[in-house]
């Protein structure tokens, strides 16, 4: 599973990164690397079965337990 993920990410990077370097779009490359790192971390953690806090549960906590604006 992990090896499969690494292969997929390598392919995506090979497709996306060379044009960015060739056209010297450094800003794009920085943003791209940030997203890439996030995607790799998230999917690795998922593949390893680590519990990741859900953003939607955070929203639910704010609306329900902090603001009390929920129904029921």
């Amino acid at each position, binding site marked *: 599973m992990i090896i499969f993920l690494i292969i997929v990410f390598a392919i995506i990077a090979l497709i996306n990164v060379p044009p960015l370097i060739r056209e010297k779009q450094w800003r794009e490359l920085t943003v791209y690397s940030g*997203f890439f790192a996030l995607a790799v971390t998230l*999917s690795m953690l998922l593949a390893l079965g680590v519990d990741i806090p859900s*953003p939607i549960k955070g929203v639910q906590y704010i609306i329900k337990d902090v603001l009390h604006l929920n*129904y029921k």
Partner: protein
Amino acid sequence: MDIATHKGTITNKQLLLAVACFIFGSTLQSSFSIGVTKQDTWIVVITGFIVGAIVALICLTLSSKFPGKTIIEINEIVYGKVIGKVVSSLYIFVIFSSVYLNTRDVGNFIVRDTMPQTPLAAILIIFIFVCAFAVNKGIVAIVRLGFLFFLLYIIALIISIILLLNNMNFSYFSPSFTLPIMNYVQGTHIIGLIPFGEVYIFMMIYPSVDKNCKVKKSVLSGMLIAAIAMLIIAIRDWSVLGSTATIFKLPTYQTVSVIEVGETLSRAEALFSISFVVLLFFKISVMYYALMIAFAQIFNIKSYKPLTYIVGIISICLSILIYDSVSENAYFAPNIAPTYVTFFAVVLPILALLIAKARGIGRKRGCT
């Protein structure tokens, strides 16, 4: 195409169909209001449409004050550079969450009803890959599909009504107006903000429309068409299923599966499955495109295209991890989501309008 300006090639007719299809996608997931308002769902659809139209008008007014600007750019003008970025990241958060919540809905539907053996991730990967492909082709390519999907949906709807005429029983609708008043308020809030209110996402797309003047008319007529379809669906579902409709996750799906003409024509829910997946593909592609434009503008980069697949992977991960079970999903949609969307579709646009007025920026009236 220059992303920073992305001047328009969408016609108003295409915008109308896009808005209609965008809301059609949600009409198929109508289960959350049916559980709350039961036999009076049709009333709530009408009041919900009125609320939704007001919400859309607020967003349209904000957009028309800053012609050719998306909500991300408007935030930066209205709030200034730093606070603008903060507000914009909230918008990105909510649009992103719409993308992965709807993707999860597609996954749940396919896993539960059509392919129970397939892992959720496999379906999501294929689905998001197709959406990402469409997004990379640009908004013009996506909205061109609107006409086709619109026809598909209307034809499926008409066929299902003709075939279900036998099974309809209008006595299920009585007694009307007997539920607690709070249920009507909640129902109106759900219908007004979730299917109709989500049109605020089009604030990212209005700048690509050809003639900004007629945007209001196209959006509202698109919403009206969708509201009529939704009303028909609400009446059809309840008159066929009766109070059993509340126990199903997707009442619309169950309604269509009732169809049986003789021994030959049955299992018409395939028709429904197709329109569900196709329309949610359309809806998610529009939101996904809005999200990519938002990312491009907040990070100030020239093209969103290299990022599309990576953002797709992130949204697959998020849509897998947001809920542990279907019941959590069923709680979030009717009870939390309306308030959540209200904040972005009503509170923030009104705040932006007030600040713009106080600071005296933005175009006063009329259009070019």
